[in-house]
């Protein structure tokens, strides 16, 4: 453990030296944006920590502790419930396209859910709002069913395109909920105002609802109306959590370390700014770093 932090300390020093060297290049060779030095150093630090943690996880036999995320634990419970009731599972991977990280995360979680539905032989319905998401989600679902040895259960129409328009999509999904009465509704991706429409309709049909999103404005609506909500980071950690792969879990460990570094930096900035505002010094850390 101590070695790890020594490596990080050394690495950060190296990154700072590299950034300094790049900023000091003569004009003829200068391809580096000096005003972005702080962000560059931070980005390299994040990459270093992430890659090192993954390397440690590959070589270690110890299991990393992850706190229980009730929403993710409930996914299997939701699939089981649907199987018992003989009703389908509705999975909504958000309303945005694959250029959003949240949508990619949603499609990844769909893979895990499809694994479970293949195992339990439960019907899965995935209405999507973007054609590229449809293709990607189909691929992921197909692979899941193949992995579980149930290729005959896979039907490409289980992932189907509805419409690009936000509220037309909401109307269509609400209609599916009202007609098909899924026992479980999973909302994993990027959402806007339609989030409450989904959640309330799901509530009215008595479905168990699990939501996961990084859309900050929609989290309160999901928290209010759904049984379980994965907020922000928990949603991005879902894939690692469900797969239990050490390399992916290492990514979460790296996030935690970076968070500690960020907190330290914020405290330092507050102190620096306080001294600056009190007139005790002319130095302001934030201005100096061009942030």
């Amino acid at each position: 453990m101590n070695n790890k932090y020594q490596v990080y300390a050394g690495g950060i020093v190296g990154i700072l030296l590299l950034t300094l060297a790049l900023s000091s290049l003569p004009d003829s060779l200068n391809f580096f944006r000096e005003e972005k030095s702080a962000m560059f150093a931070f980005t390299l630090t994040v990459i270093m920590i992430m890659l090192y943690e993954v390397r440690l996880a590959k070589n270690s036999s110890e299991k990393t502790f992850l706190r229980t995320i009730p929403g993710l634990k409930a996914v299997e419970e939701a699939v089981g419930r649907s199987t018992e009731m003989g009703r389908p599972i509705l999975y909504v991977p958000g309303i945005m396209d694959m250029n959003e990280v949240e949508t990619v995360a949603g499609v990844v979680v769909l893979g895990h859910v499809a694994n479970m539905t293949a195992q339990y032989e439960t019907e899965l319905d995935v209405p999507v709002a973007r054609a590229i998401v449809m293709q990607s989600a189909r691929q992921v679902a197909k692979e899941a069913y193949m992995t579980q040895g149930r290729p005959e259960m896979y039907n490409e129409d289980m992932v189907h395109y509805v419409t690009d328009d936000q509220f037309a999509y909401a109307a269509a999904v609400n209609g599916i909920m009202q007609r098909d009465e899924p026992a479980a509704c999973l909302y994993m991706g990027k959402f806007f105002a339609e989030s409450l429409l989904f959640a309330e309709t799901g509530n009215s049909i008595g479905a168990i609802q699990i939501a996961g999103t990084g859309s900050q404005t929609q989290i309160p609506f999901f928290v209010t109306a759904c049984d379980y909500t994965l907020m922000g980071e928990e949603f991005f950690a879902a894939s690692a959590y469900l797969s239990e792969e050490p390399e992916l879990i290492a990514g979460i460990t790296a996030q935690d370390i970076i968070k500690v570094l960020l907190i330290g930096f914020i405290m330092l900035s507050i102190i620096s700014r306080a001294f600056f505002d009190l007139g005790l010094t002319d130095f302001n850390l934030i201005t100096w770093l061009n942030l």
Partner: protein
Amino acid sequence: MKYLEDIILKLGAVDRRIIFLLIGLAVLIPLLTPISLPVRETPTTVKFYEGIDSIPKNSKVLVSFDYGPSTRPEIHPMNVGVLRHMLRNGHKIYISCLWPDGIYMALDALEEITDEVNPDNQSTFNIKEYEDYVLLGYRPGAEAVIKGLASDLRKVYTVDAKGRFIDDIEMMDEIKNLNDFAYIYSGSAGYPGTFEWVKYGGDPTGVPMSSGTTSVQVNEVIPYVQTGQLIGLLAGMPGAAEYEKLIASPGIAIQGMAAQSFAHIVIVIFIVFGNLAFFIKQRRDRKY
């Protein structure tokens, strides 16, 4: 007392359709029989108003319509108010749209401005296309459009909404990119909108900008107001109503505030009864 408690328990378990009905009435009645309620300006709206007033007269401003019919009640009054304010100060307006629906909102707003008459039955603004405003129209690409505008407007717009070549429009002669505007305003209902304008428009170019957003988005956008990246903010329909009051052009936002007020009161009453029922039920369950 027990009889009262039973009534409260019944109210606490009321069918949601009753709630829907009461909310419907709470919104409909004030809209049909207008009730005037005093509107109090908040600092963010005042800052927004002063920000526009501080633009040097007869400047060139970019107004972006980034919303659709669903969020029209909140954003449209803001945008119409901004157009009024800009025109009164003699500014030339350039209208862009990042949403495909935005062009129709822009056409409606311009129609409203054009049809507005003063007490003498004369057109208040008497605006003419290509003299007072240019409707650039919608372009797909979200942030790519803003990045394009920041570097070279003609990369994004070769023709305006009516198909007229940009180079044939006299008002566009001195406009090369965003730096040639004195102010940027975005009436935004989501993506693409305020964030994209701040990240790729206002911040890199240093052109002063502000925005009007839906109430739900205010949470996300307020940090930009605090840091000065947005000069004030119009926050939802209350913000639109405050702005209408400041520019002395009462409109649909001020009318809508009574409906919103009564709807909120109904929700609060239901919440209170719901909690009273919850406590009574808890106490009765404890007894047994």
